[in-house]
């Protein structure tokens, strides 16, 4: 009853006025950004404008499909306006980085949409999961809007070496006189971004191979399975060091090497869980019906193995993230002058022997994110297993 009332009050499902206001706000805002920057960086503005339109279409479609409440609408509109307001207050920085600003805006809205959509589940989440979610949210926002938040440039030398904490340099400066706070913000963007890309690659490769092995069995399964066994027989850290010595440590080769090494773990899991599904009757029925291999994988197997894969994604991300920072810490990962949490710890490690904890902050940032992701995965696994029995 209340459902229908709220729907009527807000004009039904299709293009309700709230989403119109939100979209109009974004469009207006982006148009201003566009006009502001059209001379400075035309391409960036045009791509930004296209991105904004694409995003609006996706958001409008999604928006009309979810179960809405007045409270939810208010949250989304309020957050949008708040972000626009903040961007207007810091207009100089926001207009200098139209890309980051727009990503930030899109993220705010996506998070608000998701929060409204999954509010029922979220309300029942334990405190640890909430803590994890908020940590992840903050990291993602900071990573997306890094150039706007950071007070200095990523590689800009702004003071003397190893300055102490002050008002100008919140966390002091590093071994080359770059602002530590700025480097931590940019480091988050680089390290988290690369770790995320690597995890996605590992999942695409390993997940697809695992599904194929389970669905086709026979020699495909044998070949894939044995090659993975061999790759896994070599300790992955040592293997990565060996290969990176040979191919060199550029970002693409880092992503590729770690992605392939991690794909073996994903393969094992994807194959094991989909093996349980492949033998069920509905898959057999589908193949008797004459459905193709791809259809069976996508529509019969994949939806049934999604929960363990999603949980594995979180754990894998943590693993890749730690792996990458460890490599960077050894000076064999992301190369300077790109800011990165692992190498920042290494570069400033001398301070530690004087009892200064500044070099530990990037390490603590790594630890905080992995703890957060672990908490969320824990909650997710608990929920997924609870639904089963």
């Amino acid at each position: 009853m209340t459902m229908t009332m709220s729907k009527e009050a807000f004009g039904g499902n299709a293009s309700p006025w709230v989403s119109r206001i939100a979209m109009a706000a974004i469009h207006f805002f982006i148009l201003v950004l566009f006009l502001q920057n059209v001379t400075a960086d035309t391409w960036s503005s045009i791509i930004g404008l296209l991105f904004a339109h694409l995003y609006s279409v996706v958001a409008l479609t999604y928006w009309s499909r979810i179960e809405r409440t007045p409270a939810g609408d208010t949250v989304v509109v309020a957050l949008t306006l708040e972000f626009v307001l903040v961007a207007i207050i810091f207009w100089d920085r926001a207009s200098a980085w139209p890309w980051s600003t727009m990503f930030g805006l899109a993220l705010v809205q996506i998070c608000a949409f998701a929060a409204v959509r999954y509010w029922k589940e979220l309300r029942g989440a334990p405190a640890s999961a909430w803590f994890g979610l908020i940590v992840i949210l903050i990291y993602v926002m900071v990573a997306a809007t890094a150039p706007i938040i950071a007070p200095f440039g990523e590689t800009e030398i702004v003071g003397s070496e190893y300055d102490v904490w002050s008002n100008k340099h919140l966390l002091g400066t590093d071994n080359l006189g770059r602002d530590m706070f700025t480097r931590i913000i940019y480091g988050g963007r680089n390290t988290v971004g690369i770790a995320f890309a690597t995890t996605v690659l590992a999942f695409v490769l390993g997940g697809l191979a695992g599904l194929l092995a389970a669905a086709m069995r026979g020699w495909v399964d044998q070949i894939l399975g044995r090659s993975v066994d061999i790759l896994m027989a070599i300790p992955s850290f040592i293997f990565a060091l060996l290969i990176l010595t040979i191919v060199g440590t550029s970002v693409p080769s880092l992503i590729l090497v770690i992605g392939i090494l991690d794909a073996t773990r994903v393969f094992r899991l994807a194959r094991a869980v989909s093996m349980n599904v492949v033998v069920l009757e509905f898959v057999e029925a589908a193949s008797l019906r004459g459905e193709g291999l791809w259809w069976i994988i996508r529509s019969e197997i994949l939806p049934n193995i999604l929960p363990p894969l999603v949980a594995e994604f979180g754990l894998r991300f943590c693993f890749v993230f730690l792996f990458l920072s460890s490599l960077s810490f050894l000076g064999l990962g992301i190369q300077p002058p790109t800011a990165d949490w692992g190498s920042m710890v290494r570069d400033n490690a001398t301070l530690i022997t004087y009892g200064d904890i500044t070099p530990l902050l990037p390490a603590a940032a790594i630890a905080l994110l992995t703890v957060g992701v672990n908490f969320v995965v824990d909650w997710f696994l608990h929920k997924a297993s609870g639904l089963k029995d």
Partner: protein
Amino acid sequence: MSQIGKMVAQRLALGLLTLFIVSLIIFGCVELLPGNFAQEMLGRGATPETVAAFNRELGLDLPPHERYVNWLFDMLQGDFGRSLANQREISELLGIRLQNTLFLAAVAAVIAIPLAVSLGILAALYRDSIFDRGVNAMTLTAISFPEFFVAYVLIIVLGVTLNLFPAISNISEELGFWEKVYRTALPALTMTLVILAYVMRMTRAAIINLLASPYIEMARLKGLRPGRIILKHALPNALAPIINVVVLNLAYLVVGVVLVEVVFVYPGLGQLLVDSVAKRDIPVVQACSLVFAATYVLLNLLADVLSIMSNPRLLHPR
């Protein structure tokens, strides 16, 4: 007994095959090196004669399969070739470094494994109590930390602030046993913290898995004390997974030591590997990777064999 013998022999054969393939991969990786190896090592100014001489000296003018066989047989006889960076015998470098790494792993294992297993048993005994939850939360957090974070926190707290242990583990042959232990305390402690979580959680899970079985129910209904049920009835059957995870973590102790050694400037194999990678000293990298990989494969094999041997159903066939 013959069934066990057969399974063990099978695993051993498989392990040897794995070792062979691993050596093939490690050798093959270098073959993939783009460009001419000699040219890269000698620089642009090298004349064709010096390049040829360099190739002959390292045996690079032979076809790949011959080189592989030579390399493998030399290695089996303990000759790993010479380092490109300082022309020293690699076997000389390797011997002492490996000893140090194994020493560190042993110290860490002696602290970590009894502690982890007994904590796991206690957590299973007092499950769902505050103690259990506290230990669980702590270990979950410990897993999430990067190793160098744990290491530096230990340096700051125990090394710099309390001044209990040296922050840099500089050990050498001449030192007495206890002095060596004292100097390796911080790296060993770091590794203890890292593996403690895994072993403890697995021990707890292995025991709790069994607690729902009918024979444990029977023991409980007989009126046995919980401690006795867990130690006498559950533990022997949980032994296989526990041994498995312990040995796998030993493998981790030897292989995962790289970062910890670098933080504490410990003169071990991991440090050597990282230095050589930075210098692109390929023969040393190959040799180190092979030693690490062999240790890893062998310990995995040991875990396999031990878990077969400790399986009561296989030990006492009907």
